[in-house]
């Protein structure tokens, strides 16, 4: 069960009040892959953080009975002065994983080679994304929250991620933010459209994309 119950999210920054979600109640359909689309600033990433529990809603409740991943985006949460290896170990420790197994998996998957022993701040954004993606794939979640991350790396890496991802999808569900209609079409079968605080659910992903394009 993954559900929003009367969830509102309002940011107050320097006197500017921004309503991201307004009294939203929604049960995420189980065993379906849900896309989240919307313009920049519509609140897609906020919704991901609320789903993950990285951030509390301003009012209302988020119910979560599944093992939900952290929002997989571009390298949030890595400590720049720590090496890739140290960051991997840290995340596997907090999630109670066998550290060595995770390290081996990420080494093989992310193909960062000796760079893993360098501080993260020396990484390019592509390298960071590969590390983040590999790390999350090493840990088994029931729901993966993915924020614009599938389109990283070169063609070979993308092919590899797609293969791993398809494997994961057999037993897990994904909720994905993307601007790319092709990516959404490939992975998702229904979706939410965020527009100026209003949220609409589309049972068919093609309808979602049409609505998104006409925004």
């Amino acid at each position, binding site marked *: 069960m993954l559900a929003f119950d009367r969830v509102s999210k309002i940011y107050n920054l320097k006197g500017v009040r921004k309503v991201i979600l307004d009294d939203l109640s929604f049960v995420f359909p189980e065993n379906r892959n849900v896309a989240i689309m919307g313009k920049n600033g519509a609140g897609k990433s906020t919704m991901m953080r609320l789903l993950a529990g990285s951030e509390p809603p301003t009012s209302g409740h988020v119910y979560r009975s599944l093992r939900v991943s952290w929002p997989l985006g571009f390298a949030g949460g890595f400590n720049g002065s720590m090496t890739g290896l140290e960051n991997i170990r*840290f995340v596997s420790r907090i999630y109670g994983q066998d550290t060595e197994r995770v390290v081996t998996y990420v080494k093989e998957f992310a193909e960062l080679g000796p760079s893993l022993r360098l501080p993260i701040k020396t990484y390019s954004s592509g390298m960071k994304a590969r590390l983040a993606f590999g790390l999350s794939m090493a840990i088994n979640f029931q729901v993966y929250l993915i924020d614009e991350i599938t389109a990283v790396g070169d063609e070979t890496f993308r092919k590899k991620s797609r293969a791993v991802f398809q494997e994961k999808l057999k037993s897990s569900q994904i909720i994905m933010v993307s601007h790319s209609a092709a990516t959404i079409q490939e992975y998702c079968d229904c979706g939410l459209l965020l527009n100026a605080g209003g949220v609409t659910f589309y049972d068919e992903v093609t309808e979602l994309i049409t609505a998104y394009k006409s925004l």
Partner: protein
Amino acid sequence: MGHRHIVDLLGAGPPHVRQMTTAELLTLQIRVILSLVLRETRATFGTSSFGYLWAVITPTASVAVLVILFSMVGRHAPFGASLALFFATGILTLQFFTETSGKLMTVFDANKALLTYPIIKDVDTILARTILISATYLVIMVIFYAGLIAAGMAQLPARPGQLVLVFLSTALLGLGYGTVNAVIVSLWDTWMQIEKVLTRPLFFISGIFYVPSQLPTRAQDYLQWNPILHLVEWFRIGFYPNYSSSVLDKTYPVLVGTVLLLIGLAGERLFRRTRF
């Protein structure tokens, strides 16, 4: 509008979600805190073991400088034979407190990136920092006092059990005060500067270079409101075989620490939503 399927949960009541048992939650929290301690150690002290060495050297050097200054102007120890020991019992206790509370003040901001991982809560980062600083000060104090003993400037502590208790009480007071400050700073960051000014006099009112019991009663009446003064007195009782204090009340700093911690934790919970 045919495809609008927003389910209204109103009236349906909260859905059934399996709660984790207390034991499960506790193991999870301990696991997270220990991982954070390791991470903070690495982030605070850098890659080389020199980093940790520096953390030990800096407070040691500041006590040494003070001792040298005071002995140059010809001051004698207000109690016992060793000026160094007398100062150390005061300064290291105060420093341990200010370091803990100071490092906690910025804890919410410094660890914001970590909250990407929803498994980590703000309280975990607070406890992890407290554990790390306590461990560091434990090392500092052991090295410093062992050094004094080796140099013949101090005897073995008379009541080691009391020293353990006062160490823990100092950590508790730092934790409580630091948590309250962290909450205030998260709401109003100018507090950071104001707090610095307000606590500057602690150096003078905590009995660091005098014996509080020898002061006039009027002065004692005021000074005894300072919980750190009690910690310093308590530490001396633990170290010297014959130090006596007319001001010391051991329950006072513990009580202040506990109350501050409760206020701090309540504040953290109460203002959690405004921090994001």
